[in-house]
């Protein structure tokens, strides 16, 4: 059979039809579409055996041991460490993003110097040549160098504070947060010793007066685990049905500025039904008299907005419990709590005899000092950064010549950002050790990037809210990705050049010495274990009443009439922490009613919305005396009337594309409030005004 032209065409036509009856065209089309996704520059997860290495999560509170899974030496995943008592196998969304953050585009890859308003890359030798003469020139001049640290648990603080002491400065400050505020009220106002911890594992009833302890207060990871074990019954008092309220046996809706009053209203019933506490409490009678006169059931109802029966039943539950524990604190796990609220919560625990006892408040001893010239931990916690910045901005104190920022981003995360900026502008030379190009690093003159926590040796002594003294050490799990340096080792090098003896050759030696002083096993610490000691500090004489307390209790708490809505700040680790911005993992998990394009959502109930003339989806302006934010409305009946939930963590102006320009920074609505009596400056939880901009949908 000869194949002519016609026959050939028939063969081709048959071939085409036949091909359509095979998987070839469909499979080929599908495979080509997949092939177009496989570009060589897209990173691939390596194949091979998976190994785990212990590490210590150091992205801000909470801090606990984690495990990093590695394939062929490359970290691929961070997960909870079941053998670390502060993790128990749990991990929070920010720590879960830690491997991803190693490769964040916001990471500072090498030292940088600002010249003519722009950063230029320099070598480490050039960086040291730049800073060493400046520090040397300021040596011996009182308070010319200052430092802000946002890591409350690392021994690096001792090196920083010791270096400052050697240079003649006492201006070491911790970034304001719950640790500093609790310390201030406990030690300076009530005359307590040690620092406070809370024995949640030992309690059978926990009353949280504000803290969202399953999300943002203390070590939420460990608290979630304990709650899951059912070791305690949980009651929550606060203005919003957050995660803690949703899981609690009872939610008692109370506005944030009434939480301290609720504590004293409960004290009224406890004082009536219980004998005086065994602890030696100076001023017990005065407090008794004050509560009896000012928190009668009628007064309590007026001050808290709660029915008398609710307060009575709550007091009854506390009295019936064998090991009750009251937790006063911030709604957002930050510095938005007043001295008054803390004092009232501490008093309630003391009246219930819940000090240094199982399931109560614990007075934890200070960490041992390993840098000879460094101040004590208590002294380091005593600095009040908000008060200092206010004084610098107002010109009532001289600005330091040089300021160091360690793991702290005050330009973004402090209240009254205008005042913070004004104060920082007065400081001629600023140095940041930040790993990331954050808002504060961008204002600095010299950047000396620290390793990512997975690349460095670091430690954590008794993170906030721990029940007992504890100590953990994290070893690096990989070689540094960029040309960064360990800040404590850099500081030790610098101290050598400045002829200051900080008592250690390297950070490793220093941590080993600390472990030795604690009688902790270095091998166990570095293999993911934790040292723990249940020793508590006995209290000679606590003060329930003194001049400062009476002034603090007596101050006027009324707010201007035009700001009527209580702002409830809410922290979510998916949107980062005060020192870490939204990680890419976190951004992916935000729902469309949390962030829509670049606008975040506030939550309020229908009645509040109606009162303020807004509705679901309205684009609104939130105005406080300190600032303004733009948001959309999400109606939520889990929020009290006249309250609005505003999420934190948005509105970064630096960092990377995953966090920059996403929503507004709600912290700009906060002001700084320096309380009369306690003398403590804190972020004031503002009342705000909500007004509609336009109908958005």
């Amino acid at each position, binding site marked *: 059979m000869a194949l002519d032209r016609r026959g050939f065409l028939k063969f*081709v036509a*048959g071939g085409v039809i036949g091909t359509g009856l095979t998987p070839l065209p469909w499979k080929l089309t599908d495979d080509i579409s997949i092939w177009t996704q496989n570009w060589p520059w897209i990173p691939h997860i390596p194949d091979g055996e998976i190994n785990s290495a212990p590490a210590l999560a150091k992205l801000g509170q909470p801090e606990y041991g984690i495990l990093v899974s590695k394939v062929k030496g490359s970290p691929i995943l961070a997960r909870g460490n079941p053998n670390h008592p502060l993790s128990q196998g749990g991990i929070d969304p920010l720590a879960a993003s830690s491997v991803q953050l190693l490769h964040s585009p916001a990471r500072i890859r090498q030292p940088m110097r600002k010249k003519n308003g722009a950063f230029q890359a320099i070598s480490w030798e050039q960086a040291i040549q730049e800073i060493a003469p400046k520090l040397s020139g300021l040596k011996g001049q009182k308070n010319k160098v200052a430092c802000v640290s946002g890591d409350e648990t690392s021994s690096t603080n001792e090196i920083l504070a010791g270096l400052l002491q050697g240079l003649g400065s006492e201006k070491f400050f911790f970034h304001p947060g719950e640790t500093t505020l609790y310390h201030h009220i406990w030690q300076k106002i009530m005359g307590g010793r040690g620092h406070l911890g809370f024995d949640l594992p030992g309690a059978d009833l926990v009353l949280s007066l504000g803290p969202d302890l399953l999300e943002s207060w203390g070590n939420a990871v460990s608290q979630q685990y304990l709650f899951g074990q059912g070791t305690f019954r949980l009651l929550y008092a606060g203005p919003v049905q957050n995660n803690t309220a949703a899981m609690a046996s009872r939610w008692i809706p109370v506005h944030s500025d009434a939480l301290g009053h609720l504590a004293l209203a409960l004290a009224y019933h406890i004082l009536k039904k219980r004998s005086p506490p065994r602890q030696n409490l100076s001023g017990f009678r005065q407090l008794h008299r004050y509560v009896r006169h000012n928190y009668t059931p009628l007064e309590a109802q007026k001050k808290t907005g709660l029915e008398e029966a609710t307060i009575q039943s709550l007091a009854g539950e506390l009295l019936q419990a064998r090991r009750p524990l009251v937790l006063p604190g911030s709604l957002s796990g930050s510095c938005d709590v007043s001295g008054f609220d803390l004092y009232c919560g501490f008093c309630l625990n003391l009246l219930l005899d819940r000090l240094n006892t199982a399931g109560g408040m614990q007075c934890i001893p200070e960490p041992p000092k390993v840098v000879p010239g460094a101040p004590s931990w208590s002294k380091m916690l005593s600095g009040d950064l908000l008060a200092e910045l206010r004084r610098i901005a107002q010109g009532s104190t001289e600005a330091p010549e040089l300021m160091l920022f360690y793991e702290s981003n005050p330009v973004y995360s402090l209240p009254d950002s205008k005042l913070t900026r004004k104060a920082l502008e007065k400081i001629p030379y600023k140095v940041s050790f930040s790993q990331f190009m954050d808002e504060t690093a961008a204002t600095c003159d010299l950047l000396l990037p620290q390793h990512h926590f997975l690349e460095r040796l670091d430690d954590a002594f008794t993170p906030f809210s721990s029940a007992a003294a504890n100590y953990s050490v994290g070893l690096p799990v990989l070689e540094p990705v960029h040309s960064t340096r360990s800040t404590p080792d850099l500081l030790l090098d610098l101290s050598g050049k400045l002829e200051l003896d900080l008592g250690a050759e390297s950070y490793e030696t220093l941590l080993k010495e600390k472990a030795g002083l604690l009688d902790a096993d270095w091998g166990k610490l570095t293999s993911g274990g934790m040292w723990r000691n249940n020793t508590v500090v006995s209290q000679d004489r606590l003060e329930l009443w003194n001049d400062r307390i009476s002034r603090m209790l007596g101050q006027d708490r009324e707010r201007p009439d035009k700001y009527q809505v209580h702002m409830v700040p809410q922290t979510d680790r998916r949107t980062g922490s005060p020192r870490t911005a939204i990680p890419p993992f976190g951004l992916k998990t935000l729902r469309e009613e949390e962030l829509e394009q670049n606008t975040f959502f506030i939550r309020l109930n229908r009645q509040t919305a109606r009162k303020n003339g807004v509705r679901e989806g309205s684009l609104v302006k939130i105005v406080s005396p300190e600032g303004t934010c733009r948001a959309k409305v999400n109606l939520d009946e889990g929020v009290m009337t006249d309250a609005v939930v505003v999420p934190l963590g948005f509105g970064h102006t630096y960092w990377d594309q995953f966090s920059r320009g996403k929503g507004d920074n709600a912290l700009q609505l906060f002001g700084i409030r320096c309380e009369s009596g306690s003398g403590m400056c804190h972020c004031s939880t503002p009342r705000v005004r909500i007004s509609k901009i336009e109908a958005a949908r």
Partner: protein
Amino acid sequence: MSSKKKGGIMPFLLGIAAALVVGWIIFPKVLYVQETQPVRFSHKLHMEQIGECNLCHSNREERAYATRMPSTKDCALCHYTALTGSSEEKELVREYIKKDKQVPWKASQKQPDNVYFSHLAHKDLECRQCHFDMENRDNLPPKYVNRLTGYTKTTMKMHECERCHARENTSNACYVCHK
């Protein structure tokens, strides 16, 4: 004229037949590269001895990371020395266990890098629902790698994930699998 007409149909039929042969037989052979496993392994025998998958495939501990091939340490728990006279086992002990070298197993169901698959989230399913009848196999299946995509022949495609999610009333939103 009539014989011409008959001859005229034959090229058309031949075209169809040739296309069917190419499309069904030659194309799959060309598209996939066959890779054999480095060590012979009987799931059937091991299931008879051990009785559960998790002992070697501890995926649930790894939680978010899909592939968890047994490490040499896992094998060494039983095979630190050869248990039988089998030459394959002797090779495993000599070449991998004694040298503490990872066996380069060929994972035939590895998910692509852009898929975030958690075994923990799927722990209520039977292993065989996705991994076929692996527990009754006396040898490991060869791995067929697609030359174009790099995927394996048995990589679960997105529509299969979606179908099961829909059936189980689980969200099919993009971020559930693609982080």
